[in-house]
């Protein structure tokens, strides 16, 4: 089945991370002492060249993945993001980012074996917003999605199955309490979103809308659908807990069979001390077929940049219309990993 690739959250400025030795000593030491040593290793990875600030971030993740229908595998993932930012004399902000990820085995996005993937983009921004060109198809999704699962929790099917092409142009700008975003690819597929977050009394509310006109390839990889979808996400934060609910409708169309899909996803997450937990569920239908998924995620922050992560993720969907298998997934995975990010 085709699922969305992990995208570089370019405009949000969220940084993923990369290499540097972790060393077994970090785990063996008393917890309150270990992060000091780790943090000192980060400084060499930034520099200022004139007015340009260069930053390198990365993640190293070593995991054991257990699939209920196969053996337990080891997985290593390392990624790196290099970014350069500067403010011009006219106060425009320009930047360039490169993100690369290496993974040694099948991951939840469907890659198999050793893989290396990368994204790159150029950005230019002013008070009117930021324009980006490159691998920016995830911009709207990142701004309007439900919160990600904690640790290795990843809820399948959450959001639209259809997507726009990886390469294109994107925009993101703030107007009052709203952040408006859009992305378009050379084929004319587009993704639009709006998000607002502000407190109401003792609760913090976030509301986001997203609409997309994209493409989707069936589970066999042989049939392409045009898709059009619209969705909404609401999120409430109270204290150190967050609760969210997302729902959407997506239409699959070809010259042959057509299908409609609706879904509801919900989740809760909380953090107490160094332990963070998330629990999410999803139910949807494509035609008469159900799609169900659930995810439990946990992260324990061991030290500066170092965390232990857990995810138990279940996904089940088999939808066929007019002899075309739109989705075909049945899996339950448990992922346990140690991760170092900087």
């Amino acid at each position, binding site marked *: 089945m085709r699922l969305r690739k992990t995208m570089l959250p370019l405009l949000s400025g969220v940084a993923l991370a990369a290499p540097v030795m972790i060393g077994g000593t970090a785990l063996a030491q*008393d917890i309150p002492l270990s992060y000091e040593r780790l943090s000192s290793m*980060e400084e060499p990875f930034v520099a*200022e060249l004139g007015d340009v*600030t260069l930053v390198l971030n990365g993640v190293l993740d070593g995991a054991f993945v257990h699939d209920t229908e196969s053996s337990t595998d080891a997985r290593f993932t390392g990624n790196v993001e290099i970014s350069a930012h500067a403010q011009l004399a006219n106060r425009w902000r320009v930047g360039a980012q490169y993100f690369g990820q290496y993974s040694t085995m099948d991951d939840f996005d469907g890659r198999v074996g050793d893989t290396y993937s990368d994204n790159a983009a150029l950005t230019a*921004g002013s008070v009117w917003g930021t324009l980006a060109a490159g691998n920016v198809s995830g911009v709207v999704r990142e701004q309007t999605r439900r919160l990600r699962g904690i640790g290795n929790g990843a809820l399948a099917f959450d959001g639209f199955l259809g997507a726009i092409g990886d390469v294109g142009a994107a925009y993101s700008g703030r107007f009052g309490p709203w952040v408006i975003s859009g992305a378009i690819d050379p*084929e*004319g597929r587009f993704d639009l979103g709006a998000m607002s977050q502000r407190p109401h009394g003792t609760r913090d509310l976030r509301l986001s809308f997203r609409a997309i*006109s994209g493409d989707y390839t069936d589970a066999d990889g042989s049939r392409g659908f045009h898709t*059009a979808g619209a969705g909404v996400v609401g999120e409430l934060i109270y*204290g150190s807990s967050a609760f969210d609910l997302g729902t959407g409708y997506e239409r699959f169309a070809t010259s042959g069979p057509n299908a409609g899909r609706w879904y509801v996803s919900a989740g809760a997450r909380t953090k107490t001390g160094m332990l963070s937990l998330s629990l999410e569920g999803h139910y949807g239908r494509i035609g008469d077929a159900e799609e169900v998924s659930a995810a439990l995620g946990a992260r324990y922050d061991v030290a500066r940049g170092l965390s232990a992560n857990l995810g138990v993720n279940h996904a089940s969907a088999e939808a066929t219309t007019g002899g075309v298998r739109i989705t075909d997934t049945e899996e339950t995975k448990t992922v346990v990993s140690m991760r170092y990010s900087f």
Partner: protein
Amino acid sequence: MTRSRRQFLSVAASTLALAGCVGPRVAAHGHRSSYTSQILKPGKDNTVFCWMDTALQQVRDQRVLTPRAAYNYGLATAAGFLAANGIVQAWEEPFGIGEGPRDADPEVAYGIAFAKAAAEAFQTPFLFERMSFLSGFPGSEAKSLGVTWGEAAARRVLEMRTGDGSEPSKANYYLGRYGRRTDPLRWRPTGPFYGASPGPAFPSFDRGLFPGHGMIIPWTMKSGEQFRVAAFHDPASPEFAETFDTVRRLGGADSTIRTADQSEIALFWEDGPWGITPPGHFLYIAMQLLQERDLPFIELARAFALLGMTQCDASICAWDNKYHHDVLRPESAIRARAPALGNPDPRVERDPGWRSFIPTPEFPAYTSGHSTFGAAAAEMLALILGRDDIAFSGRSPDEVLWPQLRGVVRHWTGLAHMAEENGMSRIYGGVHWDMDHSAAMTAGSALARQAFHTTFPRKA
């Protein structure tokens, strides 16, 4: 594949319409998301308060962190006043913005310049806020001239502030700006070990926040180092043993000596990690107090420029001190490093299970940003009002992070009382040493006094 223009427009229109239903501008006075709605009496809203409210809401909605919030408040309030003063020519100013057309409307110029500078600070055009603001002025030559001059004055302010060090300071790296201590007092990232509940979630062991912020060119100080404070205690000294013991017993989550009132004070002044932040809280209090004075427009604009600029300078002063002195937080000392401090006093002992009452911020302790902001604001307000002994009451502007504050109203006998309570809140909360507070109070007051007497003197 081909996409129809109709399909694109219909999806775009529906998305934007949904967004538009909730409003594309910050909440107007009277709306429950507006801060002026909480404190202004009927008929007290005006141009200065309107734009202050806009800036406060942007800080909240964008979750701007404290030092950046102070910078943004300073830039916008300074630009607004300098534009209006360029027309009125009532006060001297050291930045050479120049004279505007005498027939221009100074309030229009204030709003336009504030909006343009704030737009750069917050990276949003304030398009609908500007339109709404200008609709309140009937069409006239004075209005047109005010718009033109407001734009020009803001451009000059922005040209002056471009390259002021604020842009690269956003990176959470030292970049060689400040050296690190090598002794046991050295600061290190702290964890989420706090006891108040419910309270906000935030990342564990974050990097130090904005180590370059203390290098930004200040508005009213001669340099960011001008009010650099004396060295911190020797960790082996009796003074350090005393402060260690005080914070451990008073500021712990399970303290048996902290009173209920002190606990309330710790939460009341927390003002973070997001919301309008401590400098915003003091600007909010300034609006509450200055509405009673019915100051002429230009004097009110000057007052908020001085307040905004000194809050910005207070952030620069505090951050310079923090990263220059590089002193660890009580959490790190009490939970882990006590044995390494070399203090012979038996009270300086490690307590691995100790938690502060409120969250420890992710930057060095010495000096206290809260105390610097509070002292600067109290001193400046007292100078503007001509007295300190103003009894008043207040509520927390943001209750979302600490729902326990709903309905809580605190009372102060004067501005100095307010500032002292604000600073002590950090010791009650277990995130600062006594000396962080006392040294910051001295620095904050001094920088405000200097700013008041030297920055915008009345023209002869």
